[in-house]
């Protein structure tokens, strides 16, 4: 059972992209202003959670498209890999490697930023995995 109603459905439709955009905003600027992968991931998860609450698990699953645990694996993989290049080059694990010039909008890119992206994915994935499992169980 869901909270389905035209009102909530429409609200969800509006809020989902907006919230996700906000989560990307938090992720992108986290290195320089409050934000980052954690809170970004949490906010993104909140967006999907709203869908879950209003339209049910299946709708949220379709929306997310991938299995949340795959998202977790991908995030962990990203985070782990962001530390590897220097290791393979004989340096210390997780030594930051940066592009020389900052890009517009997203700013300077480097392996720590990639790491933050990994964090974002993991956080999003785990919240969704937990919520999906709970919602499934609830039926």
């Amino acid at each position, binding site marked *: 059972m869901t909270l389905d109603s035209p009102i909530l459905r429409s609200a969800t439709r509006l809020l989902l992209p907006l919230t996700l955009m906000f989560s990307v905003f*938090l992720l992108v600027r*986290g*290195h*320089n*202003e*409050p*934000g*980052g*992968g*954690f*809170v970004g991931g*949490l*906010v993104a*998860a*909140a967006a999907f*959670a709203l869908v879950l*609450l209003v339209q049910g698990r299946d709708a949220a699953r379709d929306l997310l498209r991938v299995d*949340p*645990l795959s998202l*977790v*694996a991908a*995030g*962990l993989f990203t*985070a*782990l890999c962001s*530390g590897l290049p220097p290791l393979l080059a004989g340096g210390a*694990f*997780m030594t*930051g490697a*940066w592009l020389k010039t900052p890009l517009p909008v997203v700013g*300077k890119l*480097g392996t*720590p*930023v990639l*790491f*933050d992206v*990994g*964090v974002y994915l*993991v*956080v999003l*994935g*785990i*919240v969704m*995995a*937990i*919520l*999906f*499992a*709970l*919602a*499934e*169980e*609830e039926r």
Partner: protein
Amino acid sequence: MLTSILLLFAASSLAPLAHRALGKRAGVCLAAVPALLFAHFVGQLGSVTAGRASAESWDWVAGLGIRLAFHLDGLSLLFALLVTGIGALVLVYGAGYLEGDPRLPRFSAAMLFFMAAMLGLVLADDAIALFVFWELTSVSSYLLIGFDHEQEKARKSALQALFVTGAGGLAMLAGLLLLGEAAGTLQLSALGAEAARIQGHSLHLPALLLILLGAFTKSAQFPFHFWLPGAMAAPSPVSAYLHSATMVKAGIYLLARLNPALGGTDAWHYLVILAGATTLVTGAVLAYGQTDLKRLLAFTTVSALGTLTLLVGISTEHSARAAMAFLLVHALYKAALFLGVGAIDHEAGTRDVRELGGLARAMPLTAFAVCASALSMAGLPPLFGYVAKEFFHEAKQEVPRAAAWVSTASFFGSALVAAAAGLVAWRPFFGRRRSQLSAHEAPPALWLGPVLLALLGVALGLFPGSLAVPLIQPAASAMRGEPTVVELAPWLGLSPALVQSLLMLAAGAVLYAVHDRALAALAPLRGLAKLGPDRGYQALMAGLVALARAQTRALQNGVLGVYLLVTIGSAVALAGYALFSRVALAAPAGGGVRLGEAAVALAMVVGAIAVIRARTTLIGVAALGVVGYGVAVIFLLFGGPDLALTQFAIETLSVLLFVLVLRRLPPMRQLSPPSEHLRDGFVAVAGGLFVTALVLAATATPHATPLRDWFAANSLAAANGRNVVNVILVDFRAFDTLGEITVLAVAALGVAALLRLRPEDRKESL
């Protein structure tokens, strides 16, 4: 020497294979290994008699000064010969005794394993190496006593033997370590030279006591003798070998081995002699009271072990000579007796003297072996037992200050043993034949050993000078740590000792004659016997289990609240004590509180109280949320926007979690009685006070900020980020974060798995 030990170990591990491959011949083939070694050791006689001890040694645990060292002197050699010689016979015997029994391979393996350990024990020249082999004999004896493991009695006896000797062994280990400390070396053959140093050392007495404990338990000295009769649950060849000829002598061996280092002191004399004499008498009395031949023999063994201990305790030239002679002869006759009794049991189906009789005709060879050995036990000339007894009579005169007492005691002991010997020798074979009509002579495997041993006893008695002296003299020398001359003649002439022997035999004869009546007369006293140390052991074990149960009921009672109370209480008590006893709490520096801040603080406190007082889960969750939001606001107010953002987001998602789970959760209930509330409340308040004090004390210390300052300086310059907290998380301390997201991943995996994997879907896992 290591080679010979390894050879036996190898034979042990190959025994099952050998039995499978060779069938019936396996017993003899396996016996060839100790037999060969016996021959090898016989070959060593010459050089050892000439005073040339051979030695080999490797580093084992160099860091502790422990060496895998072996040393072959007279004492070791005597034992080595007994171990390998009797060992070979017993293996042959065992193959016959257990013919057709599927457990035979196991028997052979265990016996060979034991043999290896025993050989190692007597050859070892390092205290720890000796201990290693010592314990291995205990372990293998455990498996052998419990050979009939389907029977509860066998299992219990095996455990009892292991427990008693194991306890002694541990004491001995400590004693050996202390001895090593006092002597500065663990090398046994070097201890004698350090006698003065050892005996003057403050650790001398504790070391002595602990070592004696080990020796006494192993050699079944009073009051630890009770495990030995129990060990008769083992098959006869095991009893013959372990519990008469070899293992129980390990304690005697140790005492003899340490005599040069520890012997001669008053403490040594009193303790060892007292133990020996008491055991001698106790064993004899108890032996006389038996009707089961095997138990009877077991108690005579106890008595003999007492005799040996007594002799070692006397620690003179005569006593050394007597000890070694007695050791040798006892091994021969007692092994033969056990094996013979085994044969009787095997053929007649009983070992009760009251049910046996007239078997001599059916089992002539067995009868010969048993009678010859029993007479040797009784000390009748011209058997070697008589020679040993003569030596004993001489030696006991030298008991310091208590010669008369000891003489008297040993006289009665010997008389009782002689009577027992009579029971063993006469009752089964002569007189009226009882029910065992079908009994006939045992197969060769069963009579070969006893007969050979008996013959050896006779031969030694007849030609002691040429046969026994080469064995006894080097052994006595080694035991005394100085060259000792032993002269032996078959007939020592009319000496006071001879008179004593005759008197003792006469007394024995009388006792034998009145045996049945004495037993009947003493029957009412049997209950008394149950009050012995065996009873003490039983009570100890029962007490142990009762204590264990009581402790478990008290500690591991399954009540989580109590676990938490104890855990929290421990933390608060310990850390609280440390804090309040060491840190003076000063009033914190000012800084002022703004109204808004105070309001937030108040809200949090109210929230916390509301959580406690909440009567429904939802109110509890909401109140907890209030506290969480309060924390977030505090973060926000004091410069932690990242924290605040995250905390707000997490709080909300937590609410979501609770809401999804909650409907299935029970309402909050008051379950504990008021007394528990009070108790827990006390601990909780103490915990809260401690934390407050801790925060105050910690924040009152000067604020060291090397990390903070370095991060502030390097965040942008070196790590390209202006948000220092985030840079710490993804760069400076990214390794933490890696771990953290791993935790999250696992948590999610766990939630999903737990909810989806229902027990009913699950196939059985191991």
